[in-house]
């Protein structure tokens, strides 16, 4: 299967608040939607051994990630009564305070939107081949570990 079959989720650099607003606005003509649930992952300026994280650099095995994301999306739609589900993940440098993950689900009813969003976030963290490299203020780095 060509990778082009699968919807792209990756964007270069941070997810901006303006981009999020644009996506919310684009759903205002879908008048069967009663609830949106949004998750945003923001880069923390963690202190590790006296050094501060200034940014995370994200890389991915993109082709595989898009296949996996497609499967997660399909499974989420079959499990919850969803109108829409959108996922955006940053690649490259995202500074601390900026947003690197945007998960957006919509449904006629709140429980479906909220539960689907929550489940997608967990699956994205566990199942998408994406790696974060925490960059410190002294130009050293440490590979991020998800929990």
């Amino acid at each position: 299967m060509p990778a082009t079959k699968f919807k792209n989720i990756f964007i270069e650099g941070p997810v901006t608040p303006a981009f999020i607003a644009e996506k919310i606005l684009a759903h205002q003509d879908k008048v069967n939607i009663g609830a949106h649930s949004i998750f945003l992952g923001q880069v923390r300026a963690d202190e590790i051994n006296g050094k501060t994280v200034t940014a995370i650099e994200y890389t991915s095995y993109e082709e595989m990630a898009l296949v996996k994301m497609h499967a997660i999306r399909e499974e989420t739609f079959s499990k919850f009564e969803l109108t829409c589900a959108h996922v955006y993940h940053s690649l490259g440098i995202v500074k601390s305070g900026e947003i690197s993950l945007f998960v957006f689900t919509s449904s006629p009813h709140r429980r479906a939107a909220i539960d689907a969003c929550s489940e997608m976030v967990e699956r994205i963290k566990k199942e998408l081949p994406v790696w974060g490299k925490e960059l410190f203020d002294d130009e050293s780095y440490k590979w991020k570990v998800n929990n």
Partner: protein
Amino acid sequence: MKVKVLIFGQLKDITQSASFEVTDVNDTNEIIERMNNVYPELKKMKYLVAVEKEIIQGNTILRDNFTVALLPPYSGG
């Protein structure tokens, strides 16, 4: 027979290169053996192996032009 090997995350810190072409291998165990011979530090690393974008368990027979990927623990989001 020719196979492509992709290296990600902290494993790339060891191999320096993100992509290798390997010839005359039959299965994933042979790939890992060869990589370990050239980059002994890889033996200490924890990772999953994907063949054609699917995670495999145990040794897997390869075919010509297959892509094998070594995937350290994910840390997206």
